[in-house]
């Protein structure tokens, strides 16, 4: 079982894809060019503060709004290790899995965690904060297969025999 620990950034409910990456930056050539604008309508300084291995903890309906796949890509490009939210919007959920971004559903951790706290994730099993453990579920097998392949591109490359 995979385990990691990261610093927490706390966001609220209904964090939409226009907040994660506004449309005006979508025509920039690469996700690397866009990532400095991540979350800018809500917290312009946040993209510069997030560090490698950090964890985003949010409320319900994370990633609602458009189908822009740059939303999970920006979060990955900012080197966020995983997102923990009460629930996710459908398209964002699929896009995250397809890009190899780990999403965890949990509705308890928001009550105890503060921004800057350290949180340990035991993938598919539990979250550990301040000595307390909170159970989490594993994803369905077909989704874990895509995540484990490293995303949908890699899964298709295997199918097409190019890797």
């Amino acid at each position, binding site marked *: 079982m995979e385990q990691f620990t990261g610093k927490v950034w706390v966001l609220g409910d*209904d964090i939409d894809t226009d907040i994660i990456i506004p449309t005006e930056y979508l025509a920039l050539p690469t996700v690397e060019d866009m990532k400095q604008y991540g979350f800018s309508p809500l917290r312009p300084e946040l993209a510069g503060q997030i560090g490698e291995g950090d964890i985003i903890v949010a409320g319900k309906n994370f990633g*609602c709004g458009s*189908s822009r796949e740059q939303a999970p890509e920006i979060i990955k490009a900012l080197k966020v290790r995983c997102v923990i939210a009460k629930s996710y919007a459908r398209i964002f959920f699929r*896009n995250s899995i397809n890009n190899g971004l780990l999403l965890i559903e949990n509705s308890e951790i928001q009550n105890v965690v503060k921004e800057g706290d350290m949180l340990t994730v035991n993938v598919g099993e539990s979250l550990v904060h301040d000595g307390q453990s909170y159970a989490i579920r594993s994803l369905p097998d077909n989704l874990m297969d895509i995540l484990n392949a490293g995303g949908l591109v890699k899964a298709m490359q295997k199918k*097409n025999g190019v890797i």
Partner: protein
Amino acid sequence: MGHTVIEKIIQKNTGAAVVKPGDIVTVNVDRVMIHDIFIPFVADKFEEMGFQSLWDTDKVVLIYDHLVPTSAVEDVRHFKIGDAFVKKFGVKHVHRSDGICHQLMTEAGYAKPGDIVFGTDSHTTTYGCVGCFSSGIGYTEMAAILGTGEMWIRVPETIKVQIDGTLPDNVYAKDVILRLLGDLRADGATYKALELCGSTVDNMSVASRMTISNMAVEAGAKACLFRPDEKTCAYSGVPLSDVDWIYGDADAQYCKVLTYKAEDLTPVVACPSQVDNIHNVEEVAGTELNQVFIGSCTNGRLEDLKVAAEILDGKTVACKCIITPASRKIYMEAIEAGYMETLAMAGCIITQPGCGLCCGRSGGILCDGETVLATNNRNFLGRMGTSKVGIYLGSPATAASSAIAGKIVVP
């Protein structure tokens, strides 16, 4: 045990005798739509995945709408990449200046009753207006479909929305969907399908149904389906006998049923900056406006322009009022009907059909402290300019009446 509309469509598509919510199935995709914003990413992923050809060149539709006409030099790159992809792989259907993707997909007959269609845009739920199961996906998944023609889906549960009776004169389809979003909330239909029925819905035009299915995704819905009828068949060019199987059975299992009496509904607006922040127009009446926007794939159809033209006939707008028809066909029909002349005489700014202001890229961007009343589908922070723009969403009637007053008024 009976079935919901979406269960029947999935059963027919997969050949499975029975599917139930929660089943994960692989469907054969009938059509896909890619728009200009995402074509560079789709093209890139498609080649990176190692595909040599499209699964079916006839089933792929590429539509330029978000960046038409360009408003920044880097926008041109999207068209160049799109055109190169079309040439290399033989995409059969390309629209370069015909209007907004979600209007064109049913208007040009690409998405038909009973079909399963995916698009690289969240508002792909729109085609449910003709009884098509359509949903938005990301560009990586689109690239995989382009190569395989297949897509895995989880069979969704269905929420039934029953609306009966006659809507008051100043209440429109937009008010119906906004009310529904206020009741369901922004995540109330996540992973689920909506199915609309009842005499109010039966009496609606396909265009009005489109306003509803377009915004269903704002409650998180995977799809939003209407039973096809004579009006649908006339619009989609299919015989009734081809679509008479597309309805929810009386004993189908719904996870939730919402019931409305049309006479109880009122003109409403979504207040800044969430689509489910719904209030009666009366409550916010008097709010000063810098701009009004009438159009988009939500409310840029002929019936919407007609309502606006009737209200603005002989009047003068008191603030900027931008009109954006959903397609070139609608634009020409509105000219023919005299609506465009009426709107221009009233002082409106008429733009090309396209996504324009709705996606905040061009044609009326606002700045800090400004307020706009718009008929499109989203009022998120920063959607139409800076994050300090207040965006209210309402019907074309509310918008046109408010444009005359320069402040929000009850239509």
